[in-house]
C-alpha cells in the first residue's frame, strides 16, 4: 500500500488539467516508475496524485502529413523502441530508451515522464535534444510549444506550470531526415543503471559523404540539466571527415560542459567521458549517416 492522500484518474487531458488546477499540490503520475519510488522513499509520501495513465490520446507514435513525428508522452519506452516510425526515422531515440532501467521498467516507464522529471540523467534527453524536439504543453488557458532546450530550468526543474500537461513531443522532418545518430550511455552496470554520463551525436553529411553538413552534440549528466554544445557544433560544420574533426568536437565539448563530482563519479572522470564519448558517438553517427572518418 502506498502512502497516497488522494488519487484522481483523469479521463482525458482536459480532465487532468482541471484536476491539477483544483489541487495545487497534486503530482502528475504517468508510468509510476519515478513517482511511486519517491512515495516509497518518503520524498513524496502523503501526496495527492492525478493519474494520466492509460489516456489514449497521450499514447503512441504517429507521423503528420508534413513528416513531423509526434510522440505521445504516455508511450512507454519499449513501445518507442519497437515502433516502426521510430525505427525507420529516429532510431537513435529507440536505442537510447532501450538502455533505461531493465525490461520490466521499459514496459511501464514513459517518455513524457522521463522528460518532465527534468533530470539530467534521463536517457531520452540527449537524443531528443539533438533532434530539436519541441514539447506541446496544455494548460487551463490553452496550449503552447516549448523547445526542449528551453524546457529545463535547473536540476529536476522545468518550465512546465503546475496545471500544464505535456501532450506531444514533436520532431520535424528537417531534424531527422538525412541524419545519422548515435547515443552512448556510460554506466558501471549494463542494466538497472543511471547514466554516469550520456552523449548523443546526430550528423548530416554533405553529398559526397565526406564533409559535415550539420552536426548536433548533446550530453546528459555533464551539467545540471541535459545540454547541447552549440558553440562546438558551429565550429565543426563544413569540416571534412578527418581525425581533426573528432579532436575539435571533443575539445570543444570540454569547454561547454560543467559536470560535478557525485558519489557516482568524480568531475575529472566525467570530463574524460565527455571527451571520449564524443569521439565514439561521432564515429558511429558518421557511420550511420553513410560515411567514415578517414585517418
Amino acid at each position, binding site marked *: 500500500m502506498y502512502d497516497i492522500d488522494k488519487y484522481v484518474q483523469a479521463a482525458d487531458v482536459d480532465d487532468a488539467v482541471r484536476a491539477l488546477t483544483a489541487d495545487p499540490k497534486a503530482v502528475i503520475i504517468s508510468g509510476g516508475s519515478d513517482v*511511486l519510488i519517491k512515495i516509497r522513499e518518503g520524498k513524496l509520501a502523503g501526496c495527492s496524485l492525478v493519474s494520466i495513465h492509460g489516456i489514449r490520446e497521450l499514447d503512441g507514435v504517429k507521423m503528420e502529413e508534413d513528416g513531423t513525428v509526434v510522440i505521445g508522452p504516455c508511450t512507454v519506452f519499449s513501445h518507442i523502441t519497437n515502433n516502426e516510425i521510430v525505427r525507420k526515422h529516429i532510431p537513435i531515440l529507440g536505442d537510447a530508451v532501450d538502455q533505461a532501467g531493465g525490461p520490466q521498467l521499459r*514496459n511501464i516507464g514513459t517518455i513524457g515522464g522521463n522528460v518532465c522529471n527534468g533530470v539530467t540523467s534521463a536517457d531520452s534527453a540527449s537524443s531528443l535534444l539533438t533532434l530539436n524536439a519541441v514539447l506541446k504543453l496544455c494548460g487551463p488557458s490553452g496550449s503552447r510549444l516549448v523547445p526542449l532546450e528551453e524546457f529545463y530550468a535547473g536540476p529536476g526543474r522545468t518550465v512546465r506550470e503546475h496545471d500544464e500537461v505535456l501532450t506531444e513531443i514533436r520532431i520535424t522532418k528537417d531534424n531527422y531526415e538525412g541524419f545519422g545518430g548515435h547515443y552512448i550511455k556510460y554506466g558501471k552496470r549494463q542494466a538497472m543503471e543511471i547514466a554516469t554520463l550520456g552523449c548523443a551525436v546526430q550528423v548530416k553529411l554533405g553529398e559526397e559523404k565526406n564533409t559535415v553538413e550539420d552536426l548536433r552534440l548533446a550530453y546528459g549528466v555533464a551539467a545540471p540539466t541535459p545540454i547541447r554544445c552549440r558553440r562546438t557544433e558551429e565550429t565543426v560544420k563544413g569540416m571534412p571527415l578527418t581525425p581533426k574533426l573528432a579532436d575539435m568536437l571533443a575539445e570543444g565539448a570540454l569547454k561547454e560542459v560543467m559536470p560535478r563530482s557525485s558519489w557516482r563519479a568524480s568531475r575529472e572522470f566525467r570530463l574524460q567521458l565527455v571527451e571520449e564519448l564524443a569521439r565514439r558517438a561521432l564515429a558511429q553517427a558518421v557511420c550511420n549517416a553513410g560515411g567514415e572518418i578517414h585517418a
Partner: protein
Amino acid sequence: MLNVIKMKVNGKEVELAVDPRESLLDTLRDRLGLTSVKRGCEVGECGACTVLVDGEAIDSCIYLTMWAQGRSVLTVEGLKGPNGELSPIQQAFIDEAAVQCGFCTPGLIMSAVEIVGTGKRYNREELRKLISGHLCRCTGYENILNAMERIVEETYRAVGKE
C-alpha cells in the same frame, strides 16, 4: 475508500473492490491469494514481483491496481495445464536446475513467458539483457540462462516446424 475494478486474472474475469493506494502486487497477493507473486524490494529493482499485464512483463510492486482496469493479468498460477501440469517453461527451469531458494523463480518464469511468446530466437547475450530486470536470482545465473536458452530454442523449433 474502495473502488470497484474489473480485470481478467489468469483468464478469469474478476470484479473486486480495491483501495486506490494498492499496488497490483498487494491486490494479487492479499486479495486474490496469488502468492507466486513475490514481495521483494518494492521499488521495481529485483523483479521478484514480475507479472504480465496484457502480455507485457511489469514489476507489479510499482503498478497501481487501478491501472489494471479492463486489462488482463497473468501470474505463474495461470500457467498450469487443465490437470495441474507444469508448463514447458517451468519444466525447463526444473530440468536445468535453475532454482536455488526459488524466490526469484516465479518472476523469472513470467519474463520467460513474455520472451518465449515473441517466438524469436535469442542468443545468450540477448537473453542476458532480456532478464536483466531480475536482480534477485540467488547464485543461479548460469542455470537460469541455460533454462531460458533451452525453452527459447525448443519453442523456436516447434514454431519453425509449423
